[in-house]
């Protein structure tokens, strides 16, 4: 039984499970490094999943679907930015409202567009890329994911933009006094998180399910946030954490087949995150001004 469970197949399955989490998690890194907590990621992923299906449904082109997903995610993130940065509303309240809104809106529109409750019709998935000269196939989104991870790591830690973004999360007043436009930087972080969160959602509907199901993210946005914390607000760390969570999910799906209650495996990401927060598995410290509105 153990041999059947632990295999290369499991690792591949874990990688696929981790893709939507990783995208959203990277989004969280950009947003929170700039000082804005983005629990709206759950809603952003959901509209992303929905957007991907809508775009693909009308054009039969998953790449258009991907673009739609990113723009839908961008829109929700934009509202979050306006409400929490410009109006300086509590970021958790804004995020919670947007999650409720996204759940309502996607279901509402899905019923209007597809004239059916529950889920959309099936759509074309992405054409897989083939490694030259072999039979190995890989989803283009996975390639994009690895690219984005590396770019994010470089951008956040090796560029001027990244330095300024981090400054806005650590001490916006100091950044401001040095001439950094804190408001603009924070907007950019949140908007990037919208685009990435939308991509994460798109993977769910375009690759996993090939259909939009109402409320299909089922808390993955929150797991992505957990991954971000576990990964100590860094892109590489977030990916490692999300891969671990993906592994837990892949394992859970295997074990379900054996009739083992899997709820306790389901809890792993949440319990691990709590342990990280209290410093049991190495301490994670958030950016100092994470979640605190900036008032000039």
């Amino acid at each position, binding site marked *: 039984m153990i041999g059947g469970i632990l295999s290369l197949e499991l690792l591949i399955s874990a990688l696929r499970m981790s893709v939507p989490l990783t995208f959203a998690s990277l989004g969280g890194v950009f947003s929170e490094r700039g000082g804005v907590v983005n629990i709206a990621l759950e809603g952003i992923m959901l509209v992303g999943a929905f957007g991907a299906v809508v775009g693909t449904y009308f054009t039969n082109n998953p790449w258009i679907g991907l673009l739609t997903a990113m723009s839908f995610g961008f829109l929700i993130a934009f509202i979050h930015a306006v409400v929490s940065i410009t109006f300086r509303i*509590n970021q958790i309240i804004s995020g919670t409202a947007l999650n409720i809104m996204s*759940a309502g809106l996607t279901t509402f529109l899905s019923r209007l567009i597809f004239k059916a409750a529950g889920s959309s019709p099936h759509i074309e998935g992405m054409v897989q890329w083939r490694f030259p000269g072999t039979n190995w196939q890989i989803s283009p989104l996975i390639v994009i994911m690895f690219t984005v991870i590396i770019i994010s790591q470089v951008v956040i830690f090796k560029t001027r933009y990244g330095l300024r973004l981090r400054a806005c999360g650590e001490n916006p007043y100091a950044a401001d006094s040095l001439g950094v436009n804190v408001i603009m930087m924070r907007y950019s972080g949140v908007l990037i998180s919208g685009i990435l969160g939308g991509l994460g959602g798109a993977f769910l509907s375009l690759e996993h399910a090939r259909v939009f199901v109402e409320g299909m993210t089922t808390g993955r946005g929150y797991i992505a946030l957990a991954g971000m914390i576990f990964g100590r607000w860094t892109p590489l760390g977030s990916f490692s954490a999300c891969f671990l969570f993906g592994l837990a999910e892949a394992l859970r799906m295997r074990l379900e087949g054996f009739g083992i209650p899997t709820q*306790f495996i389901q809890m792993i990401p*949440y319990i691990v995150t*709590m342990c990280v927060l*209290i410093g049991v598995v190495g301490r994670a410290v958030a950016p100092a001004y994470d979640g605190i509105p900036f008032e000039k």
Partner: protein
Amino acid sequence: MIRRILINILAPFLAVLLAFSVGAIVIYILGENPLFVYKILLINSVTKVDGWGYVLFNATPLIFSGLAVALAFKGGLFNIGVEGQIYIGAFACAWFGITFNVRPLIGIPMGLLFAMIFGGLWGVIAGYLKARFGAHEVINTIMLNFIAIALTNYLVNNPFKEPGQINPIPQTKELFSGFIIPRVYPLLNKLGINLSPSVPLNYTFFISILFCVIVWYLLERTRWGYEIKAVGLNPKASRYGGINPNYIIILVMFLSGALGGLAGVNDVMGYRHRFLDGFSRGTGFTGIAVALLGKNNPIGIVLASILFGILDRGALAMDVFTNTPRELIRVIQAIIIIFVAIGNELIFRLLQRLEREGE
């Protein structure tokens, strides 16, 4: 003072009005008459006795959940984990309800008490982690929500699953009769109000009103309340005032979680008489909206809960009698939250400026 009260009432009212205007525009774009849709929404909720019965039934868990969020807010904490506390509290009272066969005089208070204790303890986890390790309660309560949902999902699917059950949603056995909170229609019928027996409105509603009074009394008339508010306003200053903020944080999370646990009672003891997997469906999150709209004030919370109860009831009618999907109501609810929050902030700034100019 009068100006402040006026603004406090005016702002939520305007927010609700604005949200409905946005909804009206959406309905209009879809090619339906917004007035017709809104009329349907109201006719089936507030023009009939039965409609009101359902509205108050819907409002009951929201009142508890709104109180839970508001109490935590007063103590400077954001309890986003009411949803999890509801599941844990509801499961605890169902567990005792299927275990002990006692008389209603003992069973009902016992059920309430266990819902409170277990919901409270679930809340205390986040409170303790905050007080002891400084771990932010928002992330921890979110995590605890999912743990609670998975845990009760396990319990109701395995050790506590009703044998030979037909219902596709997993559920526990039925509670012993001593734990069942009766419906109110016999009383109302005696008073000449014609509520049909099919309306699930039960005495939990009155319990929720009682708890509004208790929470008000606690916050405004007791030492605990004073200390909670002091810590909420400024934990550092309260320490100089001889208050131990860590103790208050744990206390607040217990009380808030206890109120959250009670939000599960309406369904378990008053309606289905068993624990149903996944029954809450976001009541804990709607509580955040209720607390915001009600300005953390018990009367405001009752009014906000009734408004949301009307919306929930009306949403069903919208599905049946119009072509507008009922999820529009959820969108409107979310818009209300955002507008109220923005309104609160703008008014706060306006008042600050007025006070500064007054000096």
